């Protein structure tokens, strides 16, 4: 950029130019044999004190857009076509020297990421992580950096910040980690905060708290926030304006109220319609009991000393009674760490537990693994993470067919093939793709494959362990519909584990609210959702449906 151009843009800045203006931004990735345009002709602007949301599904290019503002993409694999322009306070950032960009990164424009687990260095204490930013950009000395760090931790609502200074990331909960991330991002009073799915990996209760915190901080510090999310609920709650992205393009932008009231582009309408909805099936109340557990307990010993004697127990599940009837869905809700998943695994006898567990009236607690094997085909599980639950080295057909083979369900290869095809068709995966490997499928498709694996055995009882939590909002809706459809067709009994009450409401006809391994509230779904009795349940509801944080101490902080 020549000197005269800089002069011109500074003039423009004084004449009411927005804080950040992005014009015709494009990003291309060079892949073996082809070039992919991940972002194409994106233009938007961001004013001081404003919250702009970039909304879209995975692969829509919203994160790539955010990363290219600070040019954090893997260059030269990525490139910006000529004409792309990012102007910050009248200064063109596209093609700016590295030195200048480093000054801006983390100082004027900072970022927080989705995964608080991996965005903090596990070997550094909180003081060191936050203090590093201060030492680097502000040139503070150690004492001043420590004082400022404390101030920041207090600002982001970490309790007892003095004690937390020397804590390592693994000693903090997910919400606390995200708060530390935010503290790091705020350390230099940035003008713009880019938040890339800041709450996706968190519990609904924590999500509400973090959103509230971001809103408060924005009001106090007058920052502009660029919020990237797939969740329209969050957009409605915190954003002023919204850009809807798909296929690397912005298809619609405008004030939040306008877009939500009168969406123009069909894609926006599709997104708005895509919330897990519908009602659970009306199952017969007197349907036979498929699985019941009485006083189920899972205690993990805490061992100490040379002799490794158990000094105490972690009571992950502490005396829970459950009953699941044919064609019914029992929703198990609670925050992370409340023992939901452990309960599911214990009922399937995948981890050892105490208490009575009966399947079809027959006691299965204490059966040996050989004796359990014939029962396994009747009780199945679907996991949360569709990326970790499929073996990367087996083809989809092999994955789905494994259970058939183990239980000798199909007499020959042809019949097995037919069953695999049928199972894949039932979950809406093209059976012609059965010779492909899992990594060629999107998250939603993988979750369908995981469901097909469970369904191929024609089970009677299925544990669904947060099957929708790792998926985009619109895909969640499809998976919920699929599950409901399968239940209706096969009279399946579901144990549906989730922290997301929206999904639970769409599927469960009975709800078990769990906290610290114990049942807090139990009842028919309609009753719990319409008239929750316990403060814990109320707090969960508020967080899930209104994104409101309740900070009375009933939920974790």
């Amino acid at each position, binding site marked *: 950029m020549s000197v005269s151009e800089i002069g011109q843009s500074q003039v423009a800045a004084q004449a009411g130019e927005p804080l950040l203006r992005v014009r015709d931004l494009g990003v291309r990735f060079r*892949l*073996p*044999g082809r070039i*992919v345009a991940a972002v194409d002709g994106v233009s938007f602007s961001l004013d001081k004190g404003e919250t702009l949301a970039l909304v879209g*599904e*995975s*692969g*829509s290019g919203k994160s790539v857009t955010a990363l290219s503002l600070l040019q954090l993409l893997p260059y030269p694999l990525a490139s910006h076509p000529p004409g792309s322009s990012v102007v910050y306070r009248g200064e063109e950032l596209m093609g700016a020297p590295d030195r200048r960009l480093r000054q801006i990164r983390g100082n004027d424009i900072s970022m927080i990421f989705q995964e608080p687990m991996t965005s903090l260095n596990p070997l550094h204490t909180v003081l060191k992580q936050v203090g590093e930013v201060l030492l680097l950009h502000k040139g503070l000395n150690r004492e001043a950096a420590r004082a400022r760090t404390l101030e920041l931790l207090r600002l982001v609502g970490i309790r007892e910040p003095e004690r937390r200074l020397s804590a390592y990331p693994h000693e903090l909960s997910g919400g606390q980690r995200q708060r530390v991330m935010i503290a790091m991002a705020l350390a230099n009073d940035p003008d713009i905060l880019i938040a890339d799915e800041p709450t996706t990996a968190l519990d609904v209760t924590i999500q509400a708290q973090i959103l509230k915190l971001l809103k408060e901080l924005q009001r106090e510090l007058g920052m502009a926030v660029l919020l990237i999310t797939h969740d329209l609920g969050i957009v409605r709650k915190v954003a002023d304006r919204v850009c809807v992205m798909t*296929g690397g393009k912005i298809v619609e932008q405008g004030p939040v109220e306008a877009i939500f009231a009168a969406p123009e582009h069909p894609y926006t309408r*599709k*997104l708005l319609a895509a919330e897990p*909805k519908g009602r659970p099936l009306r199952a017969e109340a007197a349907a036979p009991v498929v699985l019941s557990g009485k006083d189920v307990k899972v205690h993990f010993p805490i061992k100490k000393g040379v002799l490794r004697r158990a000094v105490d127990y972690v009571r992950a599940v502490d005396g829970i009674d459950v009953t699941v009837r044919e064609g019914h869905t029992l929703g198990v809700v609670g925050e992370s760490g409340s023992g939901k998943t452990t309960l599911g*695994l214990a009922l399937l006898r*995948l981890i050892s537990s105490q208490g009575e567990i009966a399947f079809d009236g027959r006691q299965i607690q204490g059966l040996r*693994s050989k004796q*359990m*094997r014939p029962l*396994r*085909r009747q*009780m*199945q*599980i679907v*996991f949360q*993470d569709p990326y*970790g*639950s*499929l*073996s*990367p*080295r087996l*083809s989809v057909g092999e994955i789905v067919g*494994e*259970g058939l083979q183990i*239980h000798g369900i199909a007499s020959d290869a042809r019949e097995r093939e037919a069953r695999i095809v049928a199972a894949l*068709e*039932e979950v*809406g*995966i*093209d059976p*012609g*793709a059965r*010779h*492909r*490997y899992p*990594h*060629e*499928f*999107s998250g*939603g*498709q993988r979750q369908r494959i*995981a469901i097909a694996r469970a369904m191929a*055995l024609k089970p009677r009882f299925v544990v669904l362990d947060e099957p929708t939590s790792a*998926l*985009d909002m*619109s*895909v969640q*809706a*499809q998976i919920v*519909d*699929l599950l409901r459809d399968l239940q209706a067709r096969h009279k399946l009994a579901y144990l549906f584990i989730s922290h997301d009450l929206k999904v639970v409401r769409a599927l469960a006809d009975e709800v078990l609210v769990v906290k610290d391994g114990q049942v807090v509230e139990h009842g028919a779904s309609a009753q719990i959702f319409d008239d929750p009795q316990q403060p814990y349940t109320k707090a969960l509801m508020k967080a899930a449906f209104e994104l409101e944080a309740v900070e009375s101490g009933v939920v974790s902080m």
Partner: protein
Amino acid sequence: MPDAASPTSVPTGRAPQAQPWRLMGIAVSPMTYRRWLNFRANRRGYWALWIFLPIMLLSMAAEFIANDKPILVWYEGAPYVPVLFTYPETEFGGEFELEADYRDPFVQDLIDEQGWMLWPLIPFSYETVDFELDSPPPTAPDARHWLGTDDQGRDVAARVIYGLRLSILFGFALTVMSSIIGVVAGAVQGYFGGLIDLLAQRFIEIWQGLPFLFILIILSSVIVPGFFTLLFLLLLFSWTTLVGVVRAEFLRARNFDFIRASRALGVSDWGIMLKHVLPNAMVATLTFMPFILTGAITALTSLDFLGFGLPPGSPSLGELLQQGKANIQAPWLGMTGFFVLAALLTLLVFIGEAVRDAFDPRKLWSGSAPPPEESEPVTQAKPKPAPQGAE
């Protein structure tokens, strides 16, 4: 890609056409076919295989290429196959009841009178001493001895062919055996963990600390080493190579969700180890295999070079190198040994790399991101075919 219907050319999300996958005319599973495509995509390894295969096959038939006996004798209207069978000299009208020496002019004359002989390409075996040399051995390459003779007047070309066969067989045998032992040991340690793992790890650490060359030298002075004793001795020390890698893969994999899913399906411990964890450990194993193979060949060669290897007179590349060192004035010895060994090891490493690629499903699809998430109208009454790629 060879044909339009091969699975690689089908865009993601669309069904490949119903087409039987064929390899050289044999119907194979689509998985095998894709591995073959992966293998072929590595051009260097693919060509190395095509160079190595004929060399290996020819060296396996060493007796028919380099021998001091004719392949076929036609004598008095009847066929004789001296390569495979032993005939006494009296059979051809000679005097001794010992095996006929077909290189003896007397015997040759006897046979030529009543019939004819078909000689191999190189009419010398690895131990045949040529007594009709013009100068004292080692002699330089000429039309009679293509690669010259060694210091005992034996044909170098014949010794190289036999030596290659011995090296290849030894290398493969040692690699296969040490891989099997190593994978089993690593798998058991990694999967079960705990005390088994702890004890086995300490044992391996001590075992690896033993100075194996000295032990081999000491042992070879006590017993006369042959092919199988050497194989056993080297196996004692080479099985540990793979244990660490396989153990690490098993330790990592046993907590994955898909392992848990298999347990929920009712798969047994051994079934899980074989079907789910082992394939994951296979790439690491295959990464090491070419190095074990080349290491095995090198180990045999170096023992031969030092004189602690195969019994004297055996055709071996190490012995050839040793002669090259002892006879600097005859550079064809050392150079032949060097080039043969270098070519063999290079080809094997190239092939090993291609095999590794073949078993890595991510390799073929490197750079292809998973398809973007699709949102369909939620008014989906019943399941439809899978969401297709971007419409």
